[in-house]
């Protein structure tokens, strides 16, 4: 039996060590109950310490924007921390501007709540809710863009046209964790029981692949929102709106909202770019608006029209078309112009350059820089 002594001794020592580690962990990582003060007393919550701030807040029904589900790869969940919570983590620095570092802006997904803290968030985030929605319609707009309609049941959503929601994608196939992605709402705010999204398939994209290949009518899915700052101003400045692909969504919402609110006299130029007629959609709907909004001009353009497309409209990259119209067609003398952009960071940078070159001041250009 002597041969058993050594293994039993090793197993015993290992067991004692594991117990010690567990005890130390319980003591050292037990932060107990801590309080989070939001916006100087606007909301105070008592929570169990030790978890990331983003997760802790969402558990309490307060949602910050997040396009990566807390993985630290989107940089969207920024909030200002009033208390001292220690130095910046290497995972936060790449996402923060120098002025944000000075203001103690942190990534809520990266910092853990270990003591009582105070935070500052934009007031409109108190309006953000999680909706359990039902898919009631899925329509193909092009070969790679789907229009998806969600019913909110007894719940309602209040939002300004231009805002976005985060679609919560459940685990599927190789994807073992729930994931969130941001999509602008294309429905009008007057429709408070439904949310419509336009989703363009991104090859290899987790959320868009799910929507295009797995999502079915009747299915339930969670949506979190509304988020974003991309809304039209209340001024009478000329609106220069530029989009391509699913970037159509916030503009559709804005124009129908203006119609619903009887704001029908504002001068609007809507430039919508696509490669070929196969990539173009909502042409009839957007042209119909020209009859209902008195000074609205829809300018669809193709960058690479194909033989047989029968396309007679403007051609070229949408930035080139915008440049031509600003120089030759739109009367800008003595008028204030505002730019509204929805697209990739590259598209926004290119449009900004054209607008600035044509006298549109940067402070009057609005966008949410996400795909």
């Amino acid at each position: 039996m002597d041969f058993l002594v050594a293994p039993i001794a090793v197993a015993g020592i290992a067991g004692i060590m594991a117990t010690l580690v567990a005890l130390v962990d319980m003591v050292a990582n037990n932060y107990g109950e801590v309080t989070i003060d939001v916006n100087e007393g606007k909301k105070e919550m008592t929570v169990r310490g030790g978890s990331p701030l983003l997760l802790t807040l969402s558990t309490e029904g307060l949602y910050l924007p997040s396009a990566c589900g807390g993985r630290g790869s989107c940089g969207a969940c920024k909030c200002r921390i009033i208390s001292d919570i220690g130095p910046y983590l290497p995972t936060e620095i790449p996402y923060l501007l120098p002025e944000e570092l000075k203001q103690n802006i942190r990534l809520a997904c990266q910092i853990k709540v270990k003591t009582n803290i105070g935070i500052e968030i934009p007031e409109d985030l108190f309006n953000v809710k999680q909706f359990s929605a039902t898919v009631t319609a899925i329509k193909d707009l092009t070969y790679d863009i789907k229009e998806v309609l969600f019913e909110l049941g007894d719940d309602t959503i209040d939002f300004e046209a231009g805002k976005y929601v985060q679609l919560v994608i459940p685990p599927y196939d190789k994807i073992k964790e729930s994931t969130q992605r941001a999509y602008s709402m294309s429905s009008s705010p007057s429709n408070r029981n439904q949310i419509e999204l336009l989703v363009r398939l991104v090859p290899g994209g987790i959320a868009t692949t799910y929507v295009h290949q797995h999502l079915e009518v009747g299915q339930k899915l969670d949506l979190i929102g509304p988020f974003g700052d991309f809304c039209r101003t209340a001024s009478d400045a000329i609106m220069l709106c530029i989009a391509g692909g699913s970037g159509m969504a916030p503009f559709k919402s804005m124009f129908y909202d203006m119609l619903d609110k009887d704001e029908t006299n504002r001068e609007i130029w809507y430039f919508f770019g696509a490669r070929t007629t196969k990539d173009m959609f909502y042409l009839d709907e957007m042209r119909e608006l020209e009859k209902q909004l008195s000074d609205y001009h829809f300018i669809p353009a193709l960058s690479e029209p194909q033989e047989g497309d029968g396309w007679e409209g403007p051609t070229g990259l949408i930035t080139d078309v915008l440049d031509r119209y600003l120089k030759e067609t739109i009367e800008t003398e003595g008028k204030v112009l505002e730019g509204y952009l929805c697209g990739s960071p590259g598209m926004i940078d290119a449009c900004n350059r054209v607008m600035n070159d044509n006298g549109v001041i940067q402070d009057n250009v609005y966008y949410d820089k996400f795909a």
Partner: protein
Amino acid sequence: MKMTPELKKAQENMNPGVITAEGFLGTDKRNLSSILDEDAQMMRRLEVNPDEAARMLRHFMEEGQKGLGEPVTVDGRWIVRTDEARGHLVCPWEDGIFRKINVTVERKDTGDKLYFTDLSIHLLETHGFLEGKGSTFRLNLEILAHLLML
């Protein structure tokens, strides 16, 4: 090649949920060292020069970005679309961060398609890593060679 501490750390970072939800290894059960060794052999066999391939992929990405999110014809032979999402991805080797740019390249005459990301170019160029078998963004060498006409 040995599984050095650096490779072990990189392989941990490639698991699902660490940097990306899907991870970088797909269904591949080999360790990272074996994946790198075997893919390097295959590149030699197919006469794919990783630096040349990375240069062409970067060319497609940069030309594709000129389409501002819409597909664009590049060099008359390929249709390229780039999609940019918010944020960045860290390289599993922790030697750089990269914009989330997805690129789709289609050869016009054959319809062959290849998907890759900004990070894929770095992984190929710097680490000789094509991603594991079954991974969505694995650079399939045969398709790569055919598509790029290497």
